[in-house]
């Protein structure tokens, strides 16, 4: 039996996957629009993020029970910021430009949809954190 990761660690693992996805999307968009610097940067950040998410090396540093109250609220800003940003990129009309498929628009749309879904998934461990890490009333 494997031990189920804590909500806090699940949250950060998802956050790293989200960062990996965003960076991969940026790299793909940059590749489609011939911007080599952004391609390299995006691939590096994406690779590091996926590596850290898979190996759990950084997430392992997170201490259980330390994320409470205001800190949960702070963590919640991560998916909120991503959703707000990607919602502005969620434009289905950009899939086509002057009657032809517009590749950078397609990539941006796929990136936005994936990022919004991953951000929405991050709400679950946040809710679980509220349940497990909330300070107990009346405890001495």
């Amino acid at each position: 039996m494997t031990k189920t990761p804590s909500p806090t660690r699940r949250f950060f693992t998802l956050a790293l996957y989200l960062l990996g996805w965003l960076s991969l999307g940026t790299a793909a968009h940059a590749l489609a629009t011939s911007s080599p610097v952004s391609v390299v940067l995006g691939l590096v950040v994406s690779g590091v993020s996926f590596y850290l998410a898979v190996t759990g090396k950084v997430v392992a540093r997170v201490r259980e029970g330390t994320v409470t109250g205001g800190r949960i609220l702070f963590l919640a800003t991560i998916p909120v910021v991503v959703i707000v940003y990607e919602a502005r990129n969620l434009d289905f009309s950009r899939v086509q430009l002057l009657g032809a498929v517009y590749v950078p628009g397609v990539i941006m749309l796929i990136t936005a949809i994936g990022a919004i879904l991953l951000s929405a998934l991050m709400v679950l461990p946040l809710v679980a954190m509220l349940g497990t890490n909330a300070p107990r009333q009346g405890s001495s």
Partner: protein
Amino acid sequence: MPDNRRKLQAGLAAVVAFSLFVCMVTGGASARAPGRQIGGFTFTPHVTDVGATPIPGVAVVPTPDSGQYFEEDDANRPEVLREAGDDWFGYGALASNPDLYAIWVTDETGTHYLIVESDSDLIWGDTDRQGERLGNGLDGLIQQRSSLLNQIAELVGLSESRDNTSGTLFQIGIGGLILAGICVAATLGGCGVVLGAAGAFLAPAFVIQGDARENDTQVEVLATQLHDLEQLIRNRFAVGLARTGTP
């Protein structure tokens, strides 16, 4: 068991990465299919004095004459030296006879060609009673279209560049935000510095993204104007067909 889980996660990551690039590659193939292509600036909206630009598909050319009409796949379509426009809308002298011009327009059924005299009103515009041109010829319309295409290409390029900058800043900002979150959760010191750095990247990312979306709106407006202008060009072509009695 933990190994299996990690393998599963690694597989998921690989699938995610692979799917995005496959989407891009296959999408790229679609975009390279015949049609206008703005991204990457592969189209040439306005070409003048290019010399011989033969329209393919010519083997045996019967003597062309004013009023003749050809479809794009017609083997008898004469060779044209393009003077203005592009593969979709334009005009140019016939290679075999500079006194005759071909004008062409494209609609959903393909590209259509009409042979006219070199001084045709269709190209240079109708004349008023004083003999002055009215400016309603294909020449002016095609120049306007080329100008619109150039403006659109410029705005799309600007939007792409801004999206790249914004996306790069955003990924660094979100990375900083996640790092700050881990910092807080791991009760390490100096988390505020990381958070501040993240904010320094996120703020301009949003501003530049806003500029890019503003560009997109302008592109949509210009694309609508282009659509209307192309309809005007088709109407002008239809006038030519009506004058020559071509069905």
